[in-house]
């Protein structure tokens, strides 16, 4: 008896699987739980059973009948509420989106990190005066950086800025101290183009002016910044550098991310990449910005955004940045 009841359930499930229309299900229903169905036959035979068998099978038979009915009703409900699919639901499509310039993406990341440390973003003009680009930054008249070979001078007595550092004095004049700014921007050097040299590239200037700023604050900000940008602790080293507008000056190298510091053509086999020059703001520069160096001091740094983008996205040829070739640029999905 138990076996037969089980078989009834199994057979029902099998037959239901074949049904894709409501009418088919109704046919199966009358076959399994209708008046002339086997289960009804068994139920009507119940009254002829011995007391012992009645006790033994009574509830089992009743439960089986309920289960048969439930199974059919559930299946029927499912069938009527399921979408009728008459199209190919496996078709695939390529997602075409626009793209942001790699420098825009990296500048956003860097400025986001600096913003968390309280920096605000400011800007300055690409065409600037000798005063802001050189003089105010304590770069003397006969300094090599002021040569025609390095700087684009213009016929209106101005020049194309050679660095974003010119914004240091502009920002001090405009906003005073204390100050915590960063300046992403395009800069220009009179260079011949090749795979690693461009005459137009991007830098990010950073500057903090406050009371009692130490070299240790500068190191702190650099480490936080690199950790945010590279999402891991990056090995760095500081070594003495020389810039007229900072004193002391330093060069910050980071372990080459292309070869993990093992040595490769990008890092000229040294394992280190020169990434962020900077230092403590020179008292003359503070004075040029109208800030009293007896009261305030601070630090400044410059980050090569183009170079950082090359490292992060493993771009081999710097010319990709300015030639506008969509085949390259479309890789840079929006973050």
């Amino acid at each position, binding site marked *: 008896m138990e076996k037969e009841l089980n078989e009834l359930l199994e057979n029902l499930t099998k037959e239901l699987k074949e049904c894709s229309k409501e009418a088919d299900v109704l046919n199966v229903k009358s076959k399994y739980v209708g008046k002339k169905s086997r289960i009804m036959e068994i139920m009507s035979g119940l009254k002829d059973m011995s007391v012992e068998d009645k006790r033994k099978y009574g509830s089992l038979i009743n439960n089986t009948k309920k289960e048969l009915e439930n199974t059919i009703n559930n299946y029927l409900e499912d069938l009527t509420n399921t979408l009728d699919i008459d199209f190919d639901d496996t078709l695939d499509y390529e997602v075409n*989106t626009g793209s942001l310039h790699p420098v825009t993406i990296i500048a956003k990341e860097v400025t986001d990190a600096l913003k968390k440390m*309280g920096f605000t973003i400011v800007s300055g003009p690409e065409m600037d005066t000798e005063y802001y680009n050189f003089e105010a930054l304590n770069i003397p008249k006969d300094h090599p950086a002021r040569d025609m070979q390095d700087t684009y001078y213009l016929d209106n007595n101005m020049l194309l800025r050679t660095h974003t550092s010119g914004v240091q004095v502009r920002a001090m004049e405009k906003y005073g101290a204390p100050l915590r700014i960063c300046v992403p921007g395009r800069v220009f050097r009179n260079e011949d183009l090749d795979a690693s040299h461009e005459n137009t590239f991007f830098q990010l200037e950073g500057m903090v002016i406050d009371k009692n700023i130490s*070299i240790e604050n500068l190191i702190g900000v650099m480490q936080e910044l690199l950790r945010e940008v590279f999402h891991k602790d990056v090995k760095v080293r500081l070594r003495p550098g020389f810039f007229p507008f900072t*004193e*002391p*000056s330093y060069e910050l190298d980071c372990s080459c991310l292309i070869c993990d510091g093992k040595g490769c053509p990008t890092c000229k086999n040294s394992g280190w990449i020169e990434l962020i020059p900077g230092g403590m703001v020179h008292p003359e520069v503070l004075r040029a910005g109208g800030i009293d160096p007896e009261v305030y001091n601070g630090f400044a740094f410059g980050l090569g955004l183009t170079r950082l983008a090359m490292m992060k996205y493993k771009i081999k040829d710097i010319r990709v940045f300015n030639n506008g070739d969509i085949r390259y640029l479309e890789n840079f999905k929006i973050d």
Partner: protein
Amino acid sequence: MLISCNKLKTHIKNSDKIDWLHIWDTFTIRTAEVEETKEVGKSFDNVVIAEIKECIEHPDSDHMHILQVDCGEKDLVQVVCGAPNVRVGLKTALIKVGGHIDGMEITARPLRGVTSNGMCCSGKELSISDNHDGILELPTDAPVGMDIKKYLPIEDIIVEIDNKSLTNRPDLWGHYGIAREIAAITGNELLPLDVEEVKNDKKDLDITIKDPKVCYRYCGLKLENITNNKTPLDMQIFLYYVGMRSISLLVDLTNYLMLELGQPMHAFDARVVKSIEVGLAHDGDVYTTLDNVERKLTKDMLMIKNGDKYFGIAGVMGGLDSEILPDTTSVFLESATFNAGSIRKTAVALGLRTEASARYEKSLDPNMTDVALKRLLYLLRQENKDLVIASNLTDVYPTVTKEGHITLHKNILETYMGRVLPDEVVKNILESLDFKVEVKKDTYEVTVPTFRCTKDISIEQDLIEEIARMYGFENFEAKPLKLELSIKEHETVFTEEYKIKNLLATKFDMHEVNSYIWYDTALLKDLNLEVDGIKLMGKNENNILRQDLNLSLLNIVSRNLKNYNSFKIFEIGSIFEGNLTKKRLSIILTDDEKNLEATYNEAKQIAKYLFKVLKHVDVTLVNSKNVDALYDKNISKDILVNDSNYGKILVLNKKYASKIAKKKVIIAIEVDIDKYLELPKENIITKEVSKYPTVNLDYTIILNKDTKYIDLESILKEFKSNLILNYCLVGTYENKYTIRYTLGSQTKTLETKDLQTFKDRFIEHIKNNNLEIME
């Protein structure tokens, strides 16, 4: 600059305690960047000093000889050699059988039938010179049998220091200065230089400085009876290792002093020197330098004159006639200091950057000139015991450079360092670098040696740098900045630009590009366009700064049309007018000509969307009046917000578009970003929504031949009813325009009669304006 560790060792006491291969990592973080360290002299072994005892011609060769050489063993060794300078009595270098050179083992082997048990070597073969004319010639007193590496300083470590990182350190342009740093870093003692004092009991030389502003000091010394002009081998090897050619003892010594002290020197043939005058040249004069090139001079170039004739370009290069000849036995030695800027400008103007000018550019210490002369005298005396000092050490030194003095405040040092350093630490660091320090209660009174105060040390922050670097950046802790909570944003430009870029790239699938800020000359030529603008000096092409960002993007358009049929690009970049850098957004849409309408409509949509989403304002587009000839004058539109112009929609004139590509339409949207940033974002104010239902009514109006939507719009504007909540164009078919009115009331549900009244009035209004309406 190349540095020989063997040379450094001679200047430092107990130098063998220093790990010369690895000290350079520390040097990089303390002083200047080391680019490479290379061990030299490792390419061979088993090379000994050997004397040629017998020398006979090889019977089967026209140039080889069979030698019997003594290499300190019991028996003579037979060696076959092809060098022309073999002779009995010559001492040379022999690789013995079993020795190696350049990875090859030397075996006993027959050369044209005669066994050779080793190989005599040239300087080039041993990589200690580029001389391959013959085998090495050693002095007669060289001990036979001795390993050549014990006899000559062949094994060395050669270090390349990045010149750029030395620009601010005139004192590091010679080995002695580098040795001083190494001694300071390792805590060792720097040895004084051996010099020979000059008694000055002779006559002064005739030396005049005419322009003391550019020539700070000139020392001269005349020496006679120099009979040995042969450079010792160890000096030759040193010169070769650091990249100089050995020429003769006198020339080599001047170079040696430059490499040792950083002081460029000159040795003139004393027979031709009459009197020396240092002064500026005359414009237009010409002069032939040592390298036999005729140079055009200007009045800014400092010259050395002999009598009334030019003798050399000061600090850059000597003249053809000032050279030392093989028979020179008396010399006039020059050791001078010139103005750094003047020398640099001269060298740049002549395109002649020499080892000397590179050093003078760094602002050398004038107090080094006489030391260099005395040092050269000492070294020359080693090879010429009988040389005669024929003049006083004549010293023309108009303004003496004195030691500097700086007061370093302890509180400022503490601020910069972020910590308190014990007096002893500060004093030790500065003294190790030859500063003198007097410790006071609140200050250090520091005396700066002249070799540091010509350029890089003038204020107390310079001293802090010295202390910080020697203390070691790696010993600092990283300390976060204190964050103030009242930070306000100074400028919104970057954030707003990013929002625009992000919107264009995500919503409209555009690609952001960067272009050059100057027009491409080739493109202008292709388009046959004449443009004005600010010019880059000294450049003949790509030399006009752009005033139209769209135009400078056309290059990128034509480049991409090779790979794509249609695309949208944009840039936010600068244009240049007068003294001002201005910011513009330029969006370029390009597609097939047949898609003009769709592309044009998309451009309008983009323009409206930009302002609607980011500034919450509606723009109006009106026909543009002043359109540049580059663009189509009929279809271009101004983008207005409250009647003020914020930009344009421009279609490239067919004439120019066809030059970029055939049958393409190129549409530009330009926005004045400076003005856009000033435009305040409209506040969002919630509108009350009626609780009564609204009704939509669609009317299709048939336009006449000459009317456009803009005309219909003004007609619609005139139609007033307080039931109108909103109306808009929902579709067009040919000249049939369907307008949908949304009607409603705040106070009641609209009834049929309300709608009928509205309808009747509207139809009448349209008809009164001579348009047909489909009922």
